[in-house]
């Protein structure tokens, strides 16, 4: 559904994405992992047309992205940026329902949809009347998620959407989101630093390194058939939750 073909992106002082091609398979979840600064967020921005590649083309639903179609395509895509990007002048509710207001939904329809979404992201609906600055980090992240899901888009681009959530909410949301993604056949591109989460969501994982693709495969292939020691190092390094219970350094 999203195809990057020979795409390259350079900033003033460095190359963020080296020439690479990538097929994001439709109705599946593709997880981008990789070191900090390896170009994950840049790839998402390229896919939704926020930045244009220096070389190569980005194709969404078979259409090469252009100024003419990008607007309409974005309505079918939900995007959560790394820091949430909530608008400070709007309450949580107005942030989440922004596009519904734009499309002139009835209040009843908006309310109904917001109810579904607060259930889904496990947010106390009372929170919606607070401004972003009055919400905790995790609450903000869930409002961002609601905003991205509002129009029930076919494509979701999620940049560490669960990073600031506590483990319980996070685990619940992982379950719920994966169920939804699968049931409704969403095409999802998901960035995370949590290997557990990556393995849980990812039909397909793309490991980036320095703006290039190191390996793309399902999780088992990454584990059992790594392209380089870097892949193994990257996947194995994360501490499991209760790893250190028997740690001898402990007093």
């Amino acid at each position: 559904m999203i195809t990057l073909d020979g795409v390259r992106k350079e900033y003033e002082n460095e190359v963020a994405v080296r020439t690479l091609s990538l097929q994001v398979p439709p109705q599946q979840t593709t997880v981008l992992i990789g070191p900090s600064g390896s170009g994950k967020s840049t790839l998402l921005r390229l896919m939704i047309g926020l930045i244009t590649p220096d070389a190569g083309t980005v194709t969404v639903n078979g259409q090469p992205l252009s100024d003419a179609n990008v607007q309409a395509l974005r309505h079918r895509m939900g995007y959560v940026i790394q820091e949430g990007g909530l608008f400070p002048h709007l309450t949580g509710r107005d942030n989440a329902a922004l596009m519904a207001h734009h499309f002139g939904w009835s209040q009843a329809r908006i309310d109904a949809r917001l109810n579904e979404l607060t259930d889904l992201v496990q947010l106390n609906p009372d929170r919606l009347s607070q401004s972003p600055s009055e919400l905790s980090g995790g609450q903000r992240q869930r409002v961002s998620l609601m905003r991205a899901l509002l129009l029930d888009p076919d494509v979701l681009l999620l940049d560490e959407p669960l990073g600031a959530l506590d483990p319980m909410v996070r685990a619940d949301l992982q379950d719920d989101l994966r169920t939804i993604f699968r049931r409704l056949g969403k095409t999802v591109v998901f960035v995370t630093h949590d290997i557990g989460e990556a393995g849980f969501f990812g039909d397909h994982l793309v490991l980036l390194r320095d703006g290039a693709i190191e390996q793309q495969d399902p999780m088992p292939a990454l584990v059992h058939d790594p392209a380089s020691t870097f892949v193994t190092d990257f996947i194995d390094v994360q501490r499991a939750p209760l790893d250190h219970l028997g740690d001898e350094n402990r007093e």
Partner: protein
Amino acid sequence: MNTPSILDPRFSILIVLALLTAPAQGQDKDSTLTIGSKKFTENVLLGWMGTHLLQAQSIPATHREELGGSRFLWEALVRGDIDAYPEYTGTLRLEILADRSIPPHPDSFRAALAEIGVGMTAPIGFNNTYALGMRADHADSLDIETIRDLRAHPDLRLGFSNEFMDRADGWPSLKRTYNLSHTARGVDHDLAYRGLATGQLDVIDLYATDAEIKRYDLRVLRDTKQYFPTYKAVFLYRRDLQTRVPGAISTLRRLEDRIPADTMQVLNARAKIDQTDGSQVAARFVNRTFGLATTADPDTRWERLRRYTADHLVLVGLSLGLAILLGIPLGIVAAKRRFLGPTILTVIGVIYTIPALALLAMMVPPLGLGRVPAVTALVLYSLLPIVWTTYTGLKDLSPPLLESADALGLPAGAKLWRIELPMAARSILGGLKIAVVINIGAATLGALIGAGGYGQPILTGIRRANLGLILEGTVPAGVLTLLALSLLEGLERALLPRSMQS
């Protein structure tokens, strides 16, 4: 976003419409007559006579004194800014209707004027023509009554104003017409009367109703060849008065044939030399002539305040409204267009650069006097803070937030409306506040070009070094500013979300 923003253009449009339709002097245009007058004593007196007569008939009428020259009053009449004003037939024929070369008979004017929707009363009486004059005793001693009689006295010393000396239809042609052999010399008009009085001059040029004629006991020499065109005073009025204010025209016509030249000379002398208030001179005349009891008390302080306030509000409201309607879009364009942006900011800076005083002075040739040039100048003045703060407000928005808005697929217009302008609202409101303050202050300069407002008492006060008068303009201007500012603060509080308030 369900809080309507005060930046909603519908809001501004309403204000401007309300004010554009607000009548001059804050009164109801349809039922109130506005009499205009030119910038010299006699015309002002005639204006007051008309006004007092109308008021005595319970027809609401106001007098806008000393508006300017013939051209300006004529335009104002045609446009409907004023409903009537005193004019002279000679001016009508030779200046206003000059390109139509109308025969010098009142009826032929009437037809020409009627086409334009303007009516004309019969002459009020006197003929304020150009004329030659000399000391009455001197004339008597030489037995001179007409211009032609001068021929017998070629040794008389003639002194004429420089204008009369030079003009083609002045002295050279008069000399030919009457076949005079004198040589005349040019003198300053103010000094001419003095020269006559001291005996340094024998004959000078003058207007037939000049105040000095009575004062110095002069004789106006008859123009037997009708060399000088007739300048009979009449009232011009808008013909729509007939239906709009029944009785108004017939009231004005009561002045017809009522004021002979010597009466006008006396009245002019009273106003000009004795410095009696013009309105009172006119009222006394009207009362005596028509057996009325109009009082021409100068306005009370409160009436004046009401009038200044109404004028000032219109100036400020109109110009601010227009400045907002123009300024915010300009600021948006400046922020959005890479190359147009700096140009807009610079041009607006350059406009602002023109000092208010000079800007007003430069507005007058193209736009005439009064409210239009004043509002235009004020709009240009209020633009700067609005455009600039809109520009900086939009430019200062955080890039990740703008990226989020883009990613939602909001079209440019909706993004502007729902995201960018609200987030820039505090900055724009700041600019609006500065604009309000600048505008209310600068509007006082409007009085310089006849747009009224609080500047009127201030200007007079400065001229007369009268602190009371200055305060009469300054204090309400201050109060108005405070009111406007707290209105804006109120709006800010009501419409900005809590989290964006300081």
